[in-house]
């Protein structure tokens, strides 16, 4: 039974990891990465490491995708602002 759960989780890990690589848009990729982190955390739980699973979920599912999303938001704002500035300077 335990081996079955582990097998399913390992296959899910491979599938979600491939999905992360195949997702091209960084914003969507952050969401897929979050799902991958959750699957990885469950795999660690199945391997009898509940403490590592907790920190994996904290870092891989929450913090890293959050940092990616925040960085994207900041970059988009910077591009928008420079575009606005470019529009304003054009009529001169």
């Amino acid at each position, binding site marked *: 039974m335990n081996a079955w759960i582990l097998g399913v989780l390992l296959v899910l890990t491979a599938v979600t990891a491939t999905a992360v690589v195949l997702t091209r848009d960084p914003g969507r990729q952050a969401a897929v990465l979050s799902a991958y982190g959750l699957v990885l955390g469950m795999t660690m739980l199945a*391997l009898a*490491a*509940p403490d590592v699973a907790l*920190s994996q979920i904290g*870092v891989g599912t*929450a*913090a890293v995708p*959050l*940092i990616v999303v925040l*960085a994207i938001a900041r970059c988009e704002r910077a591009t928008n602002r420079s575009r606005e500035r470019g529009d304003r300077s054009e009529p001169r």
Partner: protein
Amino acid sequence: MRRQLPLVLGVLGGAALAVTGFRALAALPGAGHVPHPYGERAVADAFHHDTANAVVAVTLDQRGFDTLGEELILLAAAIGTVLLLRRLTAEAEEDAPHEYGPGEIFEGVRLVGYVLLPVTLLVGGYVVLHGHLSPGGGFQGGTVLASALYLAYLAADHRTLERLRTAGLLDTAEGLGAFGYVAIGLAGLVAGSGFLADWLPTGTVRDLRSSGTLPLLNVSIAVEVGAAFVLVVAKFLEQAILVPREEAS
């Protein structure tokens, strides 16, 4: 032909890696059943130091010096991130009329934050303090404690986190945590057992006060890891949620 060469090389290399990789995997001993010379010695040493959790005995006692390196890498990474994401004077002038926008948080999210905050703090503290007894330790507990701070951020608002961050508490905790680990190691030199070697009475196995210096090391790691985690994410938050003042009101 020239364009196909990388593809051919890639397929050949991938096939060779797959074959040798699967052969190596098949030859690995099964998990948790076959005795291994390193495992036997590590567990024997853990019991010698009255440490119930052999994993923490390996990471903090037998290979405490490696963990010191890991901790200092994290410290360097956190300092680097904070330095890179600081607001330069030119940037600050350009963004002068900016402030933090109001949080638009669903009531449900707020409620979940309030409910989970004490639970997360309790679990984090437990994982840190029982690291030498059951699965856990400073790194794992530190990240759990740090995520508790983000629940506070969700439940209250960014000003709570901002106040905490600007109070200088986090910076101090970050430095103190890293210093604590080294200081406990140096105390071993003074006590005569050697750098990072156990110098406290080891107590009785499975007692909260056992394993000598390991609980102290776990606490200092938790402080350092938790502070680093909060500092880095807070810096990204600060950069991302700053909006022009007219939008903020």
